[in-house]
């Protein structure tokens, strides 16, 4: 493999916490705290982790929908955060995102047909009279129908809205998609359909994904490499085979053990994480996971584990791995 398509280097994103009448900054939420990884062309990179650990923030910062605090994001070697407005706009069709919250990312006054097609028009990628045709095609691909074209977002069910979001991203024929929980609201059949679609597209067009999800089975199916995040940091990164067969970080282990199995007769033993979830504004010293780690020792409290290669491109940040 040559140069990676996306290179994230030491990315940080802090949100100020404000207080008082004059809204002074009293601290920072370290939503993303020094994360580095890269994604190759045609690869899908899975991102899993605790809710609120900064996955969506990473996704948005990569696409420069939010300003970074530190670090860099390179797309084909170009630093996205250094481009000017016009340059980044020109790149937009190539870099797409499926938002986590499908409803609030749709303008309530714009019919979904237009919402899906407008970017094509705006970038001059299509003729106005071909638009409807193209949108309908995409709707169909995403499990919606042409009769949905003229409806407003509020007339859709949660899953349907999610598919609108997917269609909106796919229609632009992008290189890279940040898919933020794209199938969470879909029933399994449609979920399967969408996932198949995504992997077909990947094969056909060498599409690259950053796939954020909580559903480990889906991640396993779709992604080749998976990163596990905890409290703003990457704690483990490995190919999916490695990760599922040989999880090294205790958090990853706990995660895997908690996946519900669709068989009411099986009751599985899962690793229960004890303790309060620490605040990203004031993360614990040493290893951020030590407050909840079943294996924690004294050194974990003081010494932050190095994020290192445990062999075979299996990165992990744990003293015991």
């Amino acid at each position, binding site marked *: 493999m040559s140069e990676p398509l996306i290179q994230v280097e030491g990315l940080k994103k802090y949100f100020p916490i*404000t207080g008082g*009448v*004059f*809204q*002074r900054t009293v601290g920072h939420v370290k939503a993303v705290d020094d994360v580095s990884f890269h994604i190759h062309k045609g690869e899908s990179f899975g991102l899993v982790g605790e809710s609120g650990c900064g996955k969506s923030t990473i996704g948005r910062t990569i696409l420069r929908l939010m300003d970074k605090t530190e670090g860099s994001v390179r797309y084909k070697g170009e630093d996205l955060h250094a481009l000017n407005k016009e340059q980044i706009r020109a790149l937009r069709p190539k870099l797409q995102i499926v938002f986590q919250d499908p*409803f609030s990312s749709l303008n309530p006054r714009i019919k979904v047909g237009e919402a899906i097609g407008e970017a094509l028009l705006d970038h001059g990628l299509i003729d106005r009279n071909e638009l409807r045709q193209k949108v309908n095609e995409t709707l169909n691909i995403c499990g919606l129908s042409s009769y949905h074209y003229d409806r407003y977002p509020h007339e859709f069910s949660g899953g349907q809205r999610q598919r609108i979001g997917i269609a909106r991203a796919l229609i632009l024929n992008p290189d890279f998609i940040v898919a933020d929980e794209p199938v969470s609201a879909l029933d399994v059949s449609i979920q399967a359909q969408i996932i198949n679609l995504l992997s077909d597209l990947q094969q056909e067009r060498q599409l690259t994904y950053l796939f954020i999800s909580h559903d480990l089975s889906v991640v396993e199916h779709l992604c080749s490499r998976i990163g596990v995040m905890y409290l703003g940091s990457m704690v483990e990164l490995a190919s999916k085979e490695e990760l599922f067969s040989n999880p090294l970080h205790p958090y990853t282990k706990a995660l895997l053990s908690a996946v519900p199995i669709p068989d009411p007769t099986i009751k599985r033993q899962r690793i229960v994480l004890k303790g309060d979830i620490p605040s990203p504004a004031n993360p614990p010293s040493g290893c951020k996971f030590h407050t909840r780690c079943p294996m924690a020792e004294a050194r974990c409290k003081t010494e932050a584990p190095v994020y290192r290669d445990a062999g075979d491109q299996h990165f992990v940040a744990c003293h015991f791995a």
Partner: protein
Amino acid sequence: MKQYIIRRLLQLIPTLIGISIIVFAISAMVPGDYITAKQNPNMTAEKAQQLRHIYGLDKPEYQRYFIWAGNMLKGNMGDSLQHKQPVTKVISNYVWNSFIIAFFSLIFSWLIAIVAGVFSAKFQYSLFDKFVTLFIFLCMSLPSFFIGLLVIKIFALEWGILPVGGMTTAGVEAGSWDYMVDVLKHMFLPTLVLTMLSTGSLTRYFRTGMLEVIRQDYIRTARAKGLKERTVIFKHALRNALIPAITLLGFELPALFGGAMILEKVFVWPGVGQVYLESISMRDYPFMLGFTIFLAILTLLGNLLSDVLYGMADPRIRLK
């Protein structure tokens, strides 16, 4: 936020300078001056020349501007030509009279508008809504003096329960309890009309604002919590419909002190609006300029206030 406010306050300076230049230029371009406006049939040319010299009207415009602006900086607005008194004194003589009716009508109109607007929205197209709408448009379709005359006819002439105009009955001693009652009686009609006039547009804005908001998902959530409809509407919905209201609130600041020219005339209310109007038609420049700048400062502050309040009403707004 603090920074933002400081920056905005600093911006006031160039803005005010700009306003002062424009306003002065306007006053300089307006045809005629105090002397022509007086139309004194005995005025000889020499006398007119003399007066213009004393008033400083014979100097070139830019010089006059710098003299005036320099004095303004020192807090000296000059003497009103008509009143032969410092402009600040004249303003303070009249402005509080305008303020009290504006203040009460502000309170009443906002209260009424919120309630009427909210209910019109909640019961959109109901009989109540239609009635309110029609009433509002009725008030707006007639010039204000007209509504003034109407209430005078009814309350003062036909029923005889309220005075026609003025602020006090001639001869009532200031300071006594009777005086208070007397002033309240005199205030009633102008306040009523002012309220009627401003309630209309406010109600419309509240109504549309609410119409937008009450169909949002979070209103559904509030209902799902089993909250009283009152809470749902006045807390959850109204808060979200506040942005236009805040903008309008910012406009009220200059309005509080600006006086209502036409109504003051109809009700013989000793407010500053009429004095201002007269200063314009009499080309009493020191007063006209001074008061215009006074209102300009209030306008700027009002708008600043609403910008600051935006951030409080909606935490998502980031004005930096």
